[in-house]
């Protein structure tokens, strides 16, 4: 696993939180900043549109005044038809914004002039010229500037047009209808017009500077482009043809709203071939002519300051996060540096160096507590180790004494095989494997009375040193008693009497005592509560002795034991054992059992004594399978050779 540090975890979590916090804050900030900029731009834009439109309106409304006044005068018959031209000339001479003016009459108003009568005054260079318009080739009655105010009964600003005579200047005409009373009825009589150049207007519009590359444009009532930075559009295109050419239905909709006199500031729902990128548009109508001005804001420029701020902000935040990480890392490493020292100290303490110097803590915080705990642990460990040393040496002493005791015990029982090389009638082998250093099992054998072989196997209650002492006493008593009496019953009863007296600790011993007459092969035996031995006949038959009804020795001083005898044939064997064999336990608590003993014997019926015992030991080991030995294991095999 990758090794990580505490400061790494803290920095990771703190940074994660900080970044999340930043993102939320930034989004909120961005949203509101954008909204504010949009609102500011809207306000500025509305103001800009208003002032620009006012500038244009000033000229247009002023221009409207002249024909309106003339129309009133004509309706009131203030002016005679002969003075019309001088009148118009003087008007033009004082109003330099006017390019021309016509007073056009309905057919046959003045019979002496025929069908057409339309005095016309116009500027040509610096001079003001005049003529009377109208003939079969110039039927002004059907021209928009005449016909539209006539039919609609309202003044009319014409669609802009290029004046072919006057140097291709973009012009517009304002027409006002006038009326006279004919037969007591207010009757349409003619139209007064003025022509004005739109060059000034184009200039006003093109002077509108928005951000870096925003611009203003002007649409006529029909959506014709009157002013636009792209001069190709002017008079050639309507906003609707541009929309179609570029397949921008949104532009068509915007155009429709514009020419219907609406005003708005909004994100443009179209893309412009002329000005790429996302756009915003503000539009507002010119009240007099019903034209519409549009102002285009490139969005990237509109929000340029915000984007600049964003970059600065992001850089600052990244720098902040980096320094935050550095500071956190410093603080954490300052705070936790004793921990590393503590870890080192703990390692040294674990290695046994209890007096290692603990890191110095100057603060009075958790670290100090840790320090105190550590030094307390050091002290406690030190004391405990001292105690442990003492205990261990005491234990070692006891153990060595026990080992010696075991050696002594083992030396008490015969362990040289074959024990009687001079007696061919008998062959035997025996083992004693203690569960603890000193055990309570015993076996012994010796020759009494010259021709009798006495043997015993027993098990003392309890274990350890007391059992081994009791066993030593039992063995010694058996040996000494059998010097005087030779029957197993007499030996047993004498032994019982001896060990029962002064037996305050109530210890007892199970014992099988047998005396084999080597001459006759008669085996006399007495069993005091011991496991029944197995008789293995030479002819290949194994029989377990009957279970004894006599209690172990050492319990009741006057207990009457019995004696039995059995005739051994040459080649017969006896297998004797203690309960350590039959009750050998494995980890599942299963006992080895007498059946297993019988089975092994049957399988090895002809084995020699040592072979049989080795085989038995092997099977027991296989059964317990490494489980702790709970009791002494003692086995003895005797062969009577006759």
């Amino acid at each position: 696993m990758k090794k990580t540090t505490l400061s790494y975890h803290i920095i990771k979590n703190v940074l994660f939180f900080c970044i999340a916090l930043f993102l939320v804050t930034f989004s909120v900030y961005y949203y509101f900043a954008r909204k504010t900029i949009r609102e500011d731009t809207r306000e500025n834009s509305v103001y800009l549109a208003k002032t620009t439109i006012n500038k244009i309106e000033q000229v247009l409304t002023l221009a409207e005044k002249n024909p309106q006044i003339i129309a009133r005068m004509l309706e009131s018959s203030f002016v005679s038809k002969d003075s019309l031209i001088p009148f118009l000339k003087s008007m033009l001479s004082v109003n330099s914004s006017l390019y021309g003016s016509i007073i056009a009459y309905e057919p046959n108003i003045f019979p002496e002039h025929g069908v057409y009568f339309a005095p016309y005054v116009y500027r040509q260079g610096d001079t003001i010229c005049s003529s009377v318009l109208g003939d079969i080739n110039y039927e002004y009655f059907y021209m928009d500037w005449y016909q539209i105010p006539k039919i609609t009964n309202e003044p009319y600003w014409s669609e802009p047009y290029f004046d072919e005579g006057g140097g291709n200047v973009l012009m517009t005409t304002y027409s006002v209808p006038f009326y006279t009373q004919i037969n007591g009825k207010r009757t349409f009589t003619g139209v007064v017009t003025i022509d004005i150049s739109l060059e000034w207007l184009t200039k006003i519009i093109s002077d509108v500077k928005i951000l870096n590359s925003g611009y203003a444009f002007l649409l006529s009532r029909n959506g014709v482009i009157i002013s636009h930075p792209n001069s190709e559009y002017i008079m050639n295109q309507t906003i609707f043809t541009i929309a179609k050419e570029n397949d921008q239905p949104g532009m068509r909709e915007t155009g429709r709203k514009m020419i219907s006199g609406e005003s708005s500031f909004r994100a443009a729902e179209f893309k412009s071939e002329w000005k790429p990128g996302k756009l915003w548009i503000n539009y507002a109508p010119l009240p007099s002519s019903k034209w519409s001005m549009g102002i285009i804001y490139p969005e990237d420029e509109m929000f340029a300051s915000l984007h600049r701020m964003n970059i600065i902000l992001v850089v600052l935040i990244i720098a902040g996060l980096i320094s935050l990480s550095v500071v956190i890392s410093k603080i954490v490493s300052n705070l936790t540096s004793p921990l590393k020292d503590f870890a080192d100290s703990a390692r040294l303490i674990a290695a046994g160096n209890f007096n290692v110097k603990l890191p110095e803590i100057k603060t009075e915080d958790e670290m100090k507590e840790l320090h105190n705990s550590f030094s307390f642990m050091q002290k406690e460990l030190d004391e405990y180790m001292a105690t442990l040393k003492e205990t261990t040496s005491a234990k070692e002493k006891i153990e060595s004494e026990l080992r010696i005791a075991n050696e002594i015990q083992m030396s008490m029982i015969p362990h040289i095989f074959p024990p009687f090389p001079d007696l061919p009638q008998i062959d035997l082998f025996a083992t004693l494997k203690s569960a603890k250093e000193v055990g309570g099992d015993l076996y012994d054998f010796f020759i009494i009375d010259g021709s009798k072989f006495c043997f015993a196997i027993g098990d003392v209650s309890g274990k350890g040193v007391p059992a081994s002492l009791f066993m030593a006493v039992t063995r010694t008593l058996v040996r000494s008693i059998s010097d005087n009496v030779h029957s197993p019953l007499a030996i047993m009863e004498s032994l019982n009497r001896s060990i029962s007296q002064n037996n305050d600790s109530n210890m007892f011993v199970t014992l099988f005592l047998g005396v084999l007459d080597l001459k006759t092969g008669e085996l006399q035996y007495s069993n005091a509560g011991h496991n029944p031995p197995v008789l293995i006949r030479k002819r290949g038959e194994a029989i377990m002795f009957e279970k004894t009804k006599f209690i172990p020795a050492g319990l009741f001083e006057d207990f009457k034991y019995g004696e039995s005898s059995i005739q051994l044939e040459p080649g017969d064997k006896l297998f004797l054992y203690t309960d350590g064999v039959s009750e050998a336990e494995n980890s599942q608590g299963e006992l080895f059992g007498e059946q297993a003993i019988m089975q092994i014997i049957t399988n090895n019926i002809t084995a020699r004594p040592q072979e049989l015992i080795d085989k038995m030991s092997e099977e027991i080991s296989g059964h317990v399978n490494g489980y702790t030995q709970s009791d002494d294991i003692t086995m003895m095999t005797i062969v009577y050779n006759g």
Partner: protein
Amino acid sequence: MKSHSVKVLIISAFVFFVNLLYSQQAKLTFAPQWMPQAQFAGYYIAQEMGFYKEAGIEVEFIHPSANIPATELLSSGKADVISLFLVTGMSSRSQGMDIVNICQLSQHSAIYIVTKRSSGIDKLEKLEGKKIGVWKSGFDEVPKAMMKEKRIGVEWIPILSSVNLFMLDGIDAMTVMSYNEYNNIINCGINEDELNVFPISQYGYDIPEDGLYCLNSTYETKREDLKNFITATLKGWDYAAANKAAAIDIVLSRMKSAHIPANRVHQEWMLDRVLEMMMVSASDVKGKGVQNRSIRNRSVQNRSVQNSSFQNKRVRKGELLESDFDQTAKIIKSISEKRVSFAFDEFYKPLNY
């Protein structure tokens, strides 16, 4: 777009030098019946692409104005050939001009009567008593005859050329050409679904329009040149159908040099409609080795009124049907009470068969 202009320029220059080699060429003056626009694309192309030169004729273009109609240019001898509506040509003849039709290009009527849907006029009959704008300078005969025959009394308001009076609701309805004023209205921001459209062709008045005319005397003396002119002109139209973008470039440059507001979208629309009426499409000219470079595929405006509404006519290119002649004669009688006193074969002298 520019590549087309460059191509046209190079070809023009080439043609100019070829022209220097041919010094003796017959001269013809041609006057279309209106200002330069896509309605006459075929003629301009025939000139620009040198089809006239190849045919051995030199063609000069003159344009009429609102006040000087093409017929006047013809009768005054300023023009040898003019383009006229059939009804105008026949009227002129019945009024004494000795003119003949030498080729009938258009086979259908492009005239619509339009009203704003907001006016509530959704049937022809509802025009009773309403003001209808109509061209002052002609083309008014067929709609007038139709309204008269249908006994719908309307007030005709003569208009020179703009749609402004209609836009300002000064009139209730307006006669428009499908290829011109109709699209002008659309290009002034009125949506097609805001208009009610009555194509007069659907009311039994599918009268052919543009045809070529000359004085009978010219027909007699310059027959060969006129025949060459017609052949080269038809070739020009085929080329226009197959190369719309190039055709529009040529038209636009003509318009600009005539100081007329020039609008590509509008001219494209016009060319499409005019070709429909001539029943010339790019598919008609396949196999002539002319690569079809069609106009950019734009979303066509909702063309509720389409060539599909035209009755199929069994007619050869440039042919005038006698039935159309007869119907037109009836119309002239109906509106002017003058009889057409000349016979079909006196009037129609085809040169391309």
